[in-house]
């Protein structure tokens, strides 16, 4: 077993762990007793999807995926902030 094999197995195993995490987050979104639980699960879901995109970039050996990861990070933060602000004040931009 060469070191390249070890690396590709490690990428696959990490992808599997991230997949299980995504399923747990979706479970929490469906189950969540309150709206804040769902917001928190959505926040975790986009952070885990960033990990999945980075893994895809490593697997394909391409640097093109980083812009997508950065876009998801920014839009996810803005959406979490907007949802929390809406719950807190009943309005997003006052």
């Amino acid at each position, binding site marked *: 077993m*060469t*070191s*390249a094999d*070890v*690396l590709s*197995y*490690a*990428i696959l*195993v*990490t*992808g*599997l*762990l*991230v997949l*299980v*995490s*995504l399923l*747990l*987050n979706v*479970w*929490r979104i469906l189950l969540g007793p*309150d*709206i*804040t*639980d769902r*917001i*928190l*699960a959505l*926040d*975790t879901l986009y*952070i*885990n999807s*960033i*990990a999945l995109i*980075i*893994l895809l*970039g*490593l697997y394909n*050996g391409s*640097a093109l995926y*980083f*812009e997508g*990861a*950065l876009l998801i*990070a*920014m839009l996810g*933060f803005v959406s*979490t*902030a907007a949802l*929390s*602000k809406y*719950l*807190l*004040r009943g309005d997003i931009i*006052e």
Partner: protein
Amino acid sequence: MDTTDLLNYLVAGWLIMGGFFVLVGSLGLAKLPDFFTRLHAPTKATTLGIGSVLVASMLMTSVRDGGFSVYEVVISLFLFITAPVSAHMMAKAALHKRIAMLERTGNREMAPRISAQQTPHPEPEAEDKPA
């Protein structure tokens, strides 16, 4: 063992560590008993896990393309700055909505006072001021 082997083993180790911490964060999100304890797991463990995955990607991309890959630093800095801010906003919204908390929560008698608190407006409205 040459440097390529060393790099591959190093990247594999960082990746497995990152996947483990991401899983721990999501497991905490799924299993912990109430919202305020659930807030801990994703904001800390998942941020550490994603930082480890980004370190692995940074090592790999820097060696492969030559030079220093700056994208991962930007992404991890952005995540490390925004995770506490969004956690604070969600906790504030949960206190405002009076989400049920565990019986053994410390200082739980302060929660109604905090949820009754109004966040101040950035600037006072001009019409209400006396001339």
